């Protein structure tokens, strides 16, 4: 229907006796919109190609074998930053997943249209878009000041605060897609609410909820600003108890990219490539997972 309409409006015949100004306005809109879309695509292509070129030039096995180099030392790698980033992201998502899923469950299953639920929904939307640097400041006052120093734990909490709203939102959206008749069937069998939620609603919405967690992981993996004042960075292997600065890719990239040393900058590009490819891979996997489910 839609395509037939568009096809007929682009075909030359219907233009017959149309005022020239209408024709010009229409053509202008079409051309301008197409050009703008092209600009968007070119911008992404340019950024990604540049990243691939610079990153691949800097990438070598040594990058994955050595820790970050000190000033004026040659070579070095980013293995400590990669490990630290994995730990911080893991910490963040481990804290955020139960909280986010339970909160999303409350909104979809218990709260629904109540006043409190709509307030929480509203606040969640605000948190979803709040500047991440402010979350860094908050965790700094909450954990770094009382604990007397930077720590990986503070970094994990800061990342968790960014991940929670994403998970709450997707969990609620997904649970709302579960038909009410399924729940009623469960209740009719005499199952208590918690069992209905766990074995019916969650099971039906599972892949959507997993998608939400994956998207949240992709979101926090590249966050730099909240880590600046919480996990900071570390040019060496961090302590096993995660106290003190913990090396991580985003802050490493920030510090090394702005440094005057050539090999530091190259390592920053290598780190940037590693982190961007992982994030893009994560988001593509999340999308495929969701698409497969929605087709079924």
């Amino acid at each position, binding site marked *: 229907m839609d395509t037939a309409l568009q096809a007929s409006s682009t075909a030359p015949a219907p233009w017959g006796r149309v005022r020239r100004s209408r024709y010009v306005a229409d053509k202008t809109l079409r051309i301008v919109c197409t050009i703008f879309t092209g600009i968007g695509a070119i911008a992404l292509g340019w950024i990604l190609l540049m*990243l691939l070129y610079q990153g691949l030039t800097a990438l070598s096995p040594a990058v994955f074998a050595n820790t970050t180099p000190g000033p004026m030392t040659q070579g070095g790698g980013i293995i400590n930053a990669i490990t630290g980033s994995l730990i911080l992201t893991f910490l963040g998502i481990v804290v955020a997943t139960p909280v986010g899923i339970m909160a999303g469950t409350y909104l979809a299953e218990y709260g629904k249209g109540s006043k409190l639920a709509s307030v929480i929904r509203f606040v969640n939307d605000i948190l979803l878009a709040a500047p991440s640097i402010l979350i860094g400041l908050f965790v700094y006052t909450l954990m770094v000041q009382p604990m007397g120093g930077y720590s990986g734990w503070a970094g994990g909490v800061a990342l968790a605060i960014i991940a929670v709203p994403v998970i709450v939102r997707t969990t609620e959206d997904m649970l709302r897609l579960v038909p009410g008749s399924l729940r009623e069937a469960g209740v009719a069998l005499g199952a*208590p609410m918690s069992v209905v939620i766990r074995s019916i609603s969650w099971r039906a919405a599972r892949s959507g909820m997993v998608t939400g967690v994956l998207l949240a992981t992709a979101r926090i993996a*590249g966050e730099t600003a909240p880590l600046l004042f919480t996990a900071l960075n570390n040019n060496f292997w961090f302590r096993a108890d995660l106290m003190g600065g913990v090396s991580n890719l985003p802050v490493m990239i920030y510090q090394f990219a702005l440094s005057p040393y050539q090999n530091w900058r190259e390592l920053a590009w290598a780190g940037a490539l590693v982190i961007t490819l992982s994030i893009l891979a994560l988001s593509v996997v999340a*999308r495929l997972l969701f698409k497969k489910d929605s087709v079924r």
Partner: protein
Amino acid sequence: MVAVSQQQLVMSMDTSIRRAPKSSSDTLFRLASFGSALLVLIVLAGIIGSMIWGGLPAFREFGLGFITSSVWDVQRDQYGAWVAIVGTLTTAFIALLIGVPISLGIAIFLTQLCPPWLKRPVATTIELLAAVPSIIYGMWGLFVFAPLFAKFVQIPVSQIVEGLPIFGTILYARVPSGVGILTAGIILAIMIIPFIASVARDILDQVPPILRESAYGIGCTTWEVVRHVLLPQAGVSIIGAIMLGLGRALGETMAVTFVVGNANRLSASFFDPGSTIASRIANEFNEAIGLQLNALMALGCILFLVTFLVLVLARLLIARVKVN
């Protein structure tokens, strides 16, 4: 709450039904989910509280002058937020000026003009652009965009406008290094395009197809459909989408810190370096002690207030159309 009463309703339909004994795990699950939901509220309250608590000494010391003063002198312990506020607003405004037409163009292209086979690749590309971490935009801006911008825009434009009134001031680069307020605005524009475009696309998709089809049916052109059908229908929520983008532009830290130049003075030229609230916090917070720390917290407080207002407005505008 509603769910439970629904359950009770189902059960009370026949009072002879034996009720399952109230299990403690059921209550526990309920409490856990309620507690998690409350945690979301507590976090926001905590953010507001920590900003106010941290910024209060600076507000008390300088009063309203903190906002209007453009002095930021660590040596003399004198702080004012004006330069950072102006930098934040200017970069965000430039970002909107460039980003909004492009993102609306993309949204219209995707919903009205795009051949079906191209729809998915373009939409995916735009969404991936949103997933790229902001620090990558910063690096690209500093190492790739800024040198080109200096060579092909700043230097030629400065030569043309030199000596002219007004333009000779606002478009003159004293040090054509490529970084500055305008560069930061352009990078921010590239960053907010995917956000505004994807929200605007969703909104345009929600306009009932029958309205569009009847407009095409009486012989409207695509431009007339966009102008007289889509715009009146979706206009308010599109403004909401733009506000959402504005919220992002105001609070963006890393990309801006790379390209804004981090200068501490007010300049009349768009080509000159400046600073934003977020970039100043990112630059100075780790070395700050005493009153400087409080002043940075107070800056955070102002940033939070502004983005909070913008986001609330965005939500209200988008919600209003959904109700209609």
